[in-house]
């Protein structure tokens, strides 16, 4: 009986490990996509404390105009009194998980008011997340305007 049990367990292991890995990847995908939405909410509400928790200290942020910012510069830009984002929405998001890192791509729509003038943007974004100290943090973010 114990031999039969051992055989069953051994046979079950190869099939179980990939299934567990796949389930973990699915769970992490869901978590990361939720973090992307949390990022949008934090930006809309100028919640820099929430942003601070989402972004790695070494963040590289490339804006739609090709300018580059570090974490502090990005947080300062979010806090800027002249900027009033009204809505930031992501669509067509995909997340590829590679163990302790993940790449999220999607399209964002942003509208708001800057320096008293309304703006509307639609762009493609790519974010790289790393699992660090038991939490996912974004280490790189880039947006590119969609020309067509």
């Amino acid at each position, binding site marked *: 009986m114990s031999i039969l049990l051992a055989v069953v367990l051994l046979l079950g292991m190869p099939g179980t490990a990939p299934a567990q890995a796949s389930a973990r990847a699915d769970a992490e995908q869901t978590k990361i996509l939720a973090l992307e939405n949390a990022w949008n909410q934090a930006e809309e509400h100028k919640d820099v404390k929430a942003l601070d928790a989402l972004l790695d200290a070494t963040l590289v942020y490339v804006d739609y105009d090709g300018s580059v910012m570090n974490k502090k510069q990005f947080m300062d830009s979010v806090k800027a009194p002249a900027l009033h984002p009204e809505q930031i929405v992501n669509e067509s998001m995909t997340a590829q998980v590679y163990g302790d890192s993940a790449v999220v*791509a999607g399209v964002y729509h942003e509208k708001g008011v800057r320096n008293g003038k309304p703006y509307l943007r639609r762009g*493609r974004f790519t974010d790289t997340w790393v699992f660090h100290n038991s939490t996912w943090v974004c*280490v790189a973010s880039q947006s590119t*305007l969609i020309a067509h």
Partner: protein
Amino acid sequence: MKLAVVLLTFACAMALSASGQTDTEAATKSKIVALEQLWNQAYKSGDTKALDSLLDNAIVLVNDDGSVQTKAEFLASVKESLAQPSSQQQQVEPEAFSVHVFGTTAIATGVMKVKGVEAGKAYTRRERFVDTWVNKGGNWVCVGTDATPVLH
């Protein structure tokens, strides 16, 4: 006395460990820089075999106009460009380049000067790029690349 020896041994071990990590990170940075250069050369020469080995099958490729390509589409576009060399966008050496390493993940970022022909007119522009590399089974492959025109 024994405690001092233990502490000294521990301190030496920590120092060696820290030094080893730095060496590993430096080695990874050098490796990524070399792979970026290889990518650049492969793109210029239309070496799709080399590009195939550098890019992950699930790579996310975002072009400077916001369009997105799969790996197969990108490789096909490189092959097409070989047939029509005048239409191919030429990458020049990166102007600025930096690499951040996070264990088995690395981020390469910089500015690339590109030139090409669009609607019969020659252009030169600068693009900011971020490439994400992942170490899969001992090989570094690019899993994400995005290019944004530098407007200012």
